[in-house]
């Protein structure tokens, strides 16, 4: 998975990118260049307000394309604006990249190889979206959710940039594989609706950070009957505390062979 290759795919005039962390210099010099060289003419970036305020201030005198070749909108919302979506649109179709990668050097490029110790361990999936498909309905809904958590000016710009007839007149049923959360529609609610009345035995998940008490694990147990969870996490950012976990949960830590390579290599916590 190479997100630079995604940015370089030709045939799309508009790009909408969302991120939590934002490195504006890296964005201008790498991501934006890749997009422009691929034929993109309109770029909208939605970033978490508090995160981006500092990074833009620190780099303000190095930025040459902000407001000229891309429009950046800071999102000030309850909690963090954490969506990481990259959408390239044309008058006929779209391609989407969704995952954990921020618009930063270590996020967008990830690692140099699986064995590499430098760079972030990120994941993403890329797919194409055609008219009259469940994926188009998903995308339409995701854009709607995004519009719901941004200000009026940003919303107008986003709606104008994504106002393609094929997307907005689509009446397909959503596949519900693409979620954009908002204070009104948190992930728990969307997952509950997605898998309503379904029960599962095991769950695998990967995360950059955790809470102390494993509330999400307790919720998954209650909502879906999850009995065993494998959580890949960053040991520096994970703060699971077995003393605080709900009754009946047990946490085991498995440092595994792969953790020897780097502090950021995933270790695993097995619980429930």
């Amino acid at each position, binding site marked *: 998975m190479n997100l630079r290759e995604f940015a370089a795919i030709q045939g799309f005039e508009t790009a909408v990118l969302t991120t939590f962390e934002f490195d504006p210099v890296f964005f201008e010099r790498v991501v934006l260049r*890749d997009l422009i060289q691929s034929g993109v003419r309109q770029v909208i970036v939605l970033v978490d307000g508090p995160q981006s305020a500092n990074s833009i201030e620190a780099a303000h005198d190095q930025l040459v394309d902000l407001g000229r070749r891309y429009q950046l909108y800071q999102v000030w919302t309850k909690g963090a604006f954490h969506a990481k979506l990259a959408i390239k649109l044309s008058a006929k179709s779209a391609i989407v990249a969704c995952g954990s990668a921020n618009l930063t050097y270590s996020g*967008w490029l990830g690692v140099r190889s699986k064995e590499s110790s430098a760079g972030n361990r990120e994941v993403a999936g890329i797919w194409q979206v055609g008219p009259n498909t469940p994926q188009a309905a998903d995308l339409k809904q995701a854009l709607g959710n995004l519009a719901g958590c941004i200000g009026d000016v940003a919303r107008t710009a986003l709606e104008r940039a994504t106002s393609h007839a094929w997307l907005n007149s689509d009446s397909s049923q959503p596949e519900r594989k693409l979620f954009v959360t908002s204070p009104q529609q948190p992930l728990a609610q969307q997952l509950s609706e997605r898998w309503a009345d379904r029960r599962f035995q095991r769950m695998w998940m990967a995360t950059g950070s955790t809470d102390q008490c494993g509330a999400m694990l307790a919720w998954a147990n209650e909502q879906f009957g999850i009995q065993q969870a494998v959580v890949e996490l960053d040991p520096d950012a994970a703060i699971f505390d077995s003393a605080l976990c709900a009754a009946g949960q047990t946490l085991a830590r498995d440092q595994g062979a792969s953790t020897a390579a780097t502090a950021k290599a995933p270790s695993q916590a097995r619980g429930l």
Partner: protein
Amino acid sequence: MELANLPSSPPPPEQVITTWESSRGQDLLGLRAPAERIANSLMDGVTTVSPLVRYCGFCSWIISRYVELEGPDHREVFFRFAGKCEAALVLGHLLSDNTPTGLVGTKEAKKIIESGNLRIRKLVNQPATDIYAGPSQDLAISFARKRVPGLSEERGRPLAEAMQETVGHLTALTTIDVESEEQEISASAAIELANQYSMRDPSGRERELLIDAVCPPVPLPRELARLSAYSYLLQLATANKSHTLDEDTVFRAAVEGEEDAMPSQLFGTSDGWLRFLIRDMLAAVHERAVGVVIAMLQECPHETSAIEKLEKKLTELDASGLFKSLGIHGLSLGSTIGELHRKIMETVTPVTQRCGLSRWEADLDEPAVFRALVENPGPEAVALLPVAWVLACTRAGASLDDGRFSIDQLSGARVARMGLADILMPVVTGWTDSAESIAQVIARLVRRSVDQHLGIAWYHMQADPHGNVARIVSDGSTWTRVGEFEPGRATSRLYQAINWLGQLSLLDEDGITPDGTVLLQRNLTVLETALEVR
């Protein structure tokens, strides 16, 4: 990644991996380029990989001989022929035990001699004929064509004819054909060639023509700067008879200006080298800062550190000794940047101003910063960052609005290369009454140095999607070391130019030679006339 191959529904996520080749690059902060642009505008022709001026003559003969043999207009065939001629020359010098530094292909030639089977062929991927093509074109000896270079009527052909008189009868060269990949050569023929045509010492008519190419009596408009640059060296050699001319002498003269001792025609060159020094100083201190960060990361677990933690370490350094060595007394990193600014300004009160450049008598100047970098190999050298910024602005800040003299215009430095007007001046102006500590400022400038390195690495990525010259990975709050970094300075090419003057017998151990003196007078007259015309 092809559009047609993308799935039509969200696939399971995959790890984000961006593979890249390890690229080698010298200017990893992009700050040497502005200095070198100034140096190039002062002195074209000579490069770091063209130490032997006589190759310009030899290559002109190769082109002429190839045409005489009716070689095809085919690049590969031409360089194969040129490679054989060069191989004969190298073998001859090696066999006669007279090998100057800079001869192209000596490594392979030694292997041929060791094999006992003397044969000539193209020895290196890039033969001297290709390496010296740029200098020869700058000197208007040859001109670029798509496949086989051409010779200019004014300088190239006469040079080739003079060469023909010297080597045209030597079997080592006359037996070389256009067609074959390899040919035999006798040791005696090769030695005869080297004895008749030593690469160390251009002589006779060829030498005169090479001198006229480097310092033309009738220069093209674009050659006036070069004429002035070589005259400047000859003038300094006249004034510095007691010791050998070197780069430091040139830089010292540029810093001092020497209005009384220097003909006015050469002021522009003196100012040019001073502008080079300013940009070179900025490159050197910022490269050292990145070197310090990389050395500190090397000591951290997994070669990774939170940026703030690293910055805190930098603020705890003791730089009072460094400041004292620069003549700035009573300051530590806890002092305010306003105090540092004031103390520097008290020391470097400008005495003269010429073409927008300030000069002063105190020793706190660019060479002093270079000395301090050498004398302080540890992390405390980062304390030179704000000193260099203040010096650069004091030196060249007055002319930033004047397109003729603006260091930004002449170096091409804007935002991305830390131009003075865009980046340094607004910051340094803000330091005059700032209560911020020097330590805080240094931390910010160190971060800026790393950002500068990363920014340049990202520029490289635009051109080469699979190349990455970054030595640090940043995720916003942490830095990880991912490669070696050798801090350095910009290349002036003064060493090579001074060597050319030596090879042309215009300079020797005692300074300027009689021929050099005559040439200097001629050059000054030509320059004076050119300036009057302007």
